[in-house]
């Protein structure tokens, strides 16, 4: 009997947690439509399947796998944890110049304040930091996720333009297939 009661309580708690989580995700999508800079209109979901963004199409299916593979931040928050405004101030001061620290801060903050209007800006920092760390596939996966999570945010749009329009690398590029400028590679000739 006691086991049954415990089981029921656990089931109810799990259900309540799931409902709260689903509501939270809905709220953050709503909040993302109000741009933190106050300049962006409300727009429909970006057309990720646009023929102009083959890189987006190619990576669309890989995005969930790459994002799930990232290390999860600790759900435990110390009583002395900095406020969201302090975290944002630190992130803006960093301006992505310390990518490891930026990534750590932005991810932890997005876990703690997932419904905040500042969440899209933090995701922008995450993408920038991943690129600076040369983790390009992860950066693209995060960029695609941003388009889903925060449509209409200028932060998502900036990421779209710089990560999802031009292919990251392409056979038409001068340095395609090589790492360094002066290394021997395919001849980089013009016309």
């Amino acid at each position: 009997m006691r086991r049954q009661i415990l089981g029921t309580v656990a089931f109810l708690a799990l259900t309540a947690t799931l409902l709260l989580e689903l509501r939270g995700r809905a709220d953050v999508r709503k909040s993302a439509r109000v741009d933190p800079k106050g300049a962006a209109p409300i727009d429909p979901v970006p057309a990720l399947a646009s023929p102009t963004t083959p890189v987006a199409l190619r990576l669309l299916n890989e995005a969930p796998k790459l994002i799930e593979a990232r290390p999860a931040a600790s759900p435990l928050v110390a009583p002395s944890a900095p406020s969201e405004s302090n975290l944002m101030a630190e992130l803006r001061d960093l301006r992505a110049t310390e990518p490891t620290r930026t990534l750590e801060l932005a991810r932890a903050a997005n876990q703690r304040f997932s419904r905040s209007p500042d969440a899209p800006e933090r995701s922008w920092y995450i993408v920038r930091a991943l690129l600076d760390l040369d983790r390009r596939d992860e950066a693209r996966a995060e960029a695609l996720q941003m388009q889903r999570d925060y449509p209409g945010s200028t932060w998502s749009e900036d990421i779209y333009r710089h990560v999802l329009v031009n292919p990251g690398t392409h056979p038409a590029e001068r340095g395609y297939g090589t790492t360094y400028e002066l290394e021997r590679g395919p001849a980089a000739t013009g016309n």
Partner: protein
Amino acid sequence: MGSSGGSSSGCNTAPIDPSATQQAKNLLCYLYSVYGSKVLSGQQETSWSNPQADIDYYVSTVGKHPAILGGDYLYPNGTTSRAQAYWAAGGISMMRYHMGAPPLSDTYDNSKGTVANFDELTKPGTAVNSSLNSKLDYLAVELEKLQDANVPVILVIYHEVDKYAWFWWSKGTGPQFITLWKYTVDYMIKTKGIHNVLWTLGFGHDGALSDYNPGKSYLDLGGIDQYDKGSQPFVNLYTGTKSVFGSTLPIPLHETGTIPQPKDMFPDKAPWLLWNVWATYQNTDAEGYTWNTPDTIKTAYADSHTVTREALPNLK
């Protein structure tokens, strides 16, 4: 092709390069002559897939060509020959170069890289300086082909300059960027003998930055890019840019999502020198937003202030 009228005789301005080609002089004089009363239409080509399609869209939609064809030397194959063909047909070329961060190779991803020691870029004997020179040597080869064919180029070599923005050239301080800019201009003119270029600085979305401005002795044009929605003709951006470059230097909108409507720009709200729509933004819903429609494009191209390729004077 319009009537002759691009000659630099009687023109009071000259490129910063004292050995500039006659065609570069003609082009700059023409740009100065229309600045404030006309705006040149432009379109960036999709260099990595189907560059012709961007221009063809205008021909099928409005029956005219943009005055300016935008290219990118990140993608070498065909970029120079298309510029040459566009000039031969009466148009103008505006180039940029998503250069990889030295010492990395030239890929779009690498253009967003970081140079470990920015000061070494201009220090002879360092690895990053050798890499930078190699990239400039490649660029010089391409520009020399155009020079030999008497084709001038508006070159926005380091574009979208913002404080710690996306591209490596923005990841230094203002003085470091100015040193890089001056080094690049001097290297191309004095070392490589390139004299068909109008040197154009392009700021980014954050607005023009006075501490990144190398000054008029190193600039022929000073512009900016933006992707604002619904606020054309982008008056605040124009005003802010003008406050940095001054009232005489023509200001191109060298990259945009939406075409600013000429009827809203003149006489003095935001009289851009030119607009250049980014590749594919003329007819796709990039970012889930309709930047332009056939009707807005037709309206802009039909405006009496707009210069198309067909209306350009002979600048040869």
